[in-house]
């Protein structure tokens, strides 16, 4: 337990000491929110900003999670991982520490996006609705960061990792329900969107903002996170260089 907190603290200190990284992570989602959310002329909803905000929140978490995989990649390339693996601290703490840091950082970023959305005209929700939104984002963050960190453990170098990151982040985003509802999608896209884990998170957040309680998507996300986390922890326990 102490190991997890220690690993997490290290990443947080390093992150807060590099100002560029803090700001740059916010630019892309904010750009989407402002330039697409405010500008796109759509007919299926009166307030497109309210429609797209859940999608952007989940996207922020997705890119925070995927770019978080580079943390482990650099630990590996620079030789830190070898040192960590030779420590008596349980090796799964390395993974859990990374997940907590990446998800925590993602939640900070989504909070800022949420504030920007409110400032440019999104509808204010109740505290319970925000609580549920954070729960969904947390589960989704755990799922993505566990996956990204474990992939980074297996890839050879940073170039392969960034190629992997580009390869999956854009298709995942565009084949999800982030930009439009299933009803206006072409059928083939709707089918893919229904299978996309990103859609579960987005639909759940959208459900919350509409005043519902998304039992099913939350359960699916929870189950997925538990399965992925269990596999990843097993991988980390057995890892050799």
């Amino acid at each position, binding site marked *: 337990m102490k190991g997890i907190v220690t690993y997490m603290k*290290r990443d947080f200190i390093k992150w807060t000491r590099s100002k560029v990284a803090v700001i740059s992570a916010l630019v892309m989602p904010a750009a989407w929110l402002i330039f697409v959310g405010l500008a796109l002329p759509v007919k299926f909803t009166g307030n497109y900003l309210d429609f797209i905000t859940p999608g952007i929140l989940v996207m922020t978490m997705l890119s925070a999670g995927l770019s978080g995989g580079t943390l482990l990649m650099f630990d590996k390339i620079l030789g830190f991982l*070898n040192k960590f693996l*030779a*420590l008596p*601290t349980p090796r799964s703490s390395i993974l859990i520490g990374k997940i907590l840091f990446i998800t925590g950082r993602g939640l900070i970023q989504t909070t800022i996006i949420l504030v920007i959305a409110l400032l440019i005209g999104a509808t204010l929700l109740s505290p319970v609705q925000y609580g549920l939104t954070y729960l969904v984002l947390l589960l989704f963050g755990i799922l993505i960061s566990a996956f990204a960190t474990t992939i980074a453990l297996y890839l050879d170098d940073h170039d392969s990792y960034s190629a992997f990151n580009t390869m999956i982040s854009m298709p995942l985003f565009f084949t999800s329900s982030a930009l439009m509802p299933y009803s206006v999608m072409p059928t083939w896209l709707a089918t893919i969107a229904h299978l996309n884990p990103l859609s579960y998170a987005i639909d759940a957040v959208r459900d919350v903002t509409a005043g519902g309680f998304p039992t099913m998507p939350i359960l699916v996300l929870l189950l997925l996170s538990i399965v992925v986390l269990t596999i990843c922890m097993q991988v980390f326990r057995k890892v050799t260089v």
Partner: protein
Amino acid sequence: MNAIETTDLTKYYGDLCAVDHLTLSVNNEIFALLGPNGSGKTTTVLMLTTLLNPTEGSAKVCGHDVTREGEEVRKKLSYVPQDMAVDIKLTGRENVRFFADLYGVSHASDCVDEVLEVMELTDRADDLIKTYSGGMRRRLELAQALVHEPSVLFLDEPTIGLDVAARKKIWEHIRGLRKKGMTIFVTTHYMDEADQFCDRVGIISKGKINALGSPAELKARLMKDVITVRVDGTCTPPSVEGVIFVGRNGNEVSFTAENGSEALPVLADSLARSGVTIRAMSLREPTLDDVFLQAVGPQEEPHGFEDGKFRVMLRRRK
């Protein structure tokens, strides 16, 4: 119980045999594994530190098996890899504290102060690592490794890329640790350092240990000292125990001896007694370089194995 015991330890990368049935025991000493690039030094260390599973054979650190009791083994050892990995955005104290917390050291802040003091880093402890020199970074890594008082310390090329003064300082610290009862296992390329500072060395080539013993022993075993005497006039070679007459070339007479520096005065006395006028005497001791070259033989670069693994190995040793 020896600190490190290996029995037929073997590692294959695809078809390449990186470590070939290595049997070794090391206890409370500074043991250096010497060998050319690609000879299996780092692979051996990785197996002993539980980062790599052996293909065959077994190894024990402080009585615990490295494959079955990994966690117990990791409690006993500290490992400093070849590439210097310290967080440059953290201060020296934060870097060491980080490891103290990971090891679960009690009274962490006192322990951190103590190792920083031992490594002579107290003055700069609160500066960011960005401002540290290479030698200081290496000492900081040693401080990190020592904060939990390990029984066995593994150092992979501890002095690579450091200047002479920094190297000497690192070795002085390592010697100090040995005196406290720690077992230190180092790999190095620098023969002079191994000769000067290590209790025992093993010369490894193509995964096999070709020579094992104290530096002095190895030098004596593999090659005798050469004594050359310049004389005036005739000279009847005297019979001195342990000294063998080699031959005469002009007015230079050569002898070899097991231990040249001890044999030299005896030989000088003996020659003087038999009435030979000695003009000069010289003694050339074989160096560990000679031993190394003899043990290792002509080298080829390793080839014929998986490209992927090769790139990983290259990256590790840069």
